């Protein structure tokens, strides 16, 4: 029976980082990948966050086709899919490192990115076994995971197994770490890759002005356009429970209608783009802190653990980051001789004390914002008219003061909705940021009355 220090299942970003790190720490490591090549089974999820380039130096030398996304825009459409309001913005000057100020994300094809990372793991000394499905976990009499079984019945032992087998993670299920995801913990995404001539893209959009777009409307849950090196992806998603409960329509039906909608059709035609490949996949999107990310002899990383950001489900950075932490914990626990659940609890402590834990500290609030607004089409029949009237005062239709009166009347009608909106979605996030909205407003009013200088407004921070 083959014996390794670390058995990694899945050669995506999480698995490859785990394997690379484990090898660098001197551990004998094998990686199983069910695709013939890494990336074969990776369906969309193509945006690399600035923090990937900050936290993983080797990505700076990456030489694969990529596109820097320097703008983001939000397009509000009415029930006829006419655009009524649009905003577009560039990276914030508050970005605390160069990449954060330069771009929102770098879009790449997963085929290229996953192969790049798997290549680094191989170079570091990992044995990469592609085209091999892991069908079960090996367990000892105490239930501790001691390795894996492949589709050929081969048993491969490892002191530690790292499950990086994606959103479905049959291994987490087989190891007894998790029942199936709950309907509000996971989403289904459908997406279509379009190919467009690069010269045409540069001509129409501008070589330095590539941006990703989100379209909101009362008709479907927030489809996106993500620009890619050879064209773009158009896609959308929704929580699984909303598809099965009848809240949402069938996933493909949505995508079909989005692509044939006026704004998208125009965009596609203008770039002379042609559909090239259809994608569909599950994506964890947790309104809570992930649990059961480890057990005796096993750790879950990336999507398998549920580590996708609770606002927009960005998961590549957290996959890489958790893969690295898992490998470090594997090295320490193998060296100390305790790879039981008690020993591997260290993994949970580490990720909870990292930026992953920080991200999930407001998981409920961010996921509720997205579920309540962006993936909740009926809301947009209320929000879009308010946004549309934002500049009514400047209109040439009537004297400006008449316009302004109309605008005030419209907003006063919308006040109950706005208050409810702030209470449901904004206030919880302010609380998480230690801002007490009501007390801050009171203090503001008090300062206004008391001080003659009337400058310097402080928000009250809770202890």
């Amino acid at each position, binding site marked *: 029976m083959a014996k390794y220090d670390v058995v990694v299942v899945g050669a995506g970003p999480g698995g490859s980082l785990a394997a690379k790190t484990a090898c660098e720490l001197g551990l004998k490591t094998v990686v199983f990948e*069910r*695709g*013939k090549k890494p*990336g*074969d*089974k*990776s*369906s*969309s*999820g*193509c945006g690399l966050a600035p923090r990937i380039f900050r936290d993983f130096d080797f990505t700076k030398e990456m030489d694969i086709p990529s596109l820097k996304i320097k703008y983001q825009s939000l397009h509000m459409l009415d029930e006829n899919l006419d655009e009524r309001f649009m905003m577009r913005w560039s990276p914030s000057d508050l970005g605390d490192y160069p990449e954060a100020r330069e771009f929102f994300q770098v879009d790449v*094809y*997963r*085929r290229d990115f996953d192969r790049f990372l798997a290549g680094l793991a191989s170079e570091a000394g990992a044995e990469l076994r*592609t*085209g*091999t*499905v892991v*069908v079960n976990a090996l367990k000892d009499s105490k239930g501790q995971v001691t390795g894996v079984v492949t*589709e050929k019945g081969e048993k491969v032992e490892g002191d530690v197994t790292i499950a990086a087998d994606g*959103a*479905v993670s*049959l291994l987490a299920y087989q190891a007894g770490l998790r029942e*199936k*995801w709950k*309907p509000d913990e*996971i989403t*289904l995404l*459908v997406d*279509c*890759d379009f*190919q467009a001539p690069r010269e045409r893209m540069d001509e129409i959009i501008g070589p330095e002005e590539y941006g990703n777009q989100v379209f909101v409307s009362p008709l479907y849950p927030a489809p996106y356009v993500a620009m*890619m090196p*050879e064209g773009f992806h158009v896609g959308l998603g929704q929580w*699984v429970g909303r*598809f*099965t409960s*009848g809240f949402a329509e*069938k*996933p*493909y039906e949505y*995508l*079909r209608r989005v*692509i*044939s909608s006026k704004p998208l059709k125009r965009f596609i035609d203008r770039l002379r783009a042609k*559909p*090239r*490949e*259809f*994608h*569909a*996949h*599950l994506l964890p999107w947790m309104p809570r802190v992930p649990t059961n990310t480890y057990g005796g002899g096993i750790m879950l990383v990336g999507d398998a653990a549920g580590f996708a950001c609770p606002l927009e489900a960005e998961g590549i950075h957290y996959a890489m980051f958790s893969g690295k932490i898992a490998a470090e914990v594997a090295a320490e626990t193998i060296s100390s001789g305790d790879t039981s659940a008690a020993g591997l609890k260290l993994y949970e402590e580490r990720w909870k004390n990292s930026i992953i834990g920080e991200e999930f500290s407001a998981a409920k609030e961010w996921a509720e914002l997205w579920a309540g607004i962006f993936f909740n089409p009926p809301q947009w029949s209320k929000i879009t008219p308010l946004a549309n009237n934002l500049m009514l005062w400047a209109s040439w239709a009537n004297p400006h003061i008449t316009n302004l009166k109309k605008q005030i009347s419209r907003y006063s009608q919308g006040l109950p909705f706005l208050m409810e909106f702030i209470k449901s979605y904004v206030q919880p996030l302010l609380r998480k940021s230690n801002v007490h909205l009501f007390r801050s407003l009171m203090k503001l009013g008090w300062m206004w009355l008391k001080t003659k200088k009337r400058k310097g407004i402080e928000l009250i921070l809770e202890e």
Partner: protein
Amino acid sequence: MAEKEIDLRKMVKHVRGTVEFIHHDKARCTGCGRCVNICPMELWELKKSKAFISPDYAEKCVECGSCWLVCESNAIEFSYPEGGTGVIWEYG
């Protein structure tokens, strides 16, 4: 004349394997229809209050696992086609 709409779902590359990787236990199936609603490739249908998967599912399935995930009666057993076969994404 209106342009004929393309079914985008035909734009998926497959290498046909030989193993059956989705098993459906009709006795357990409650006919709730969740698999029918969720499957992005629309490979499931309801007949007489039982779900049926298309006989050619292995040539179309994109291995997302949704049907398995949503099946509350555990009537659907999901694994993967053998290594190196099944869906291949080049532009994911």
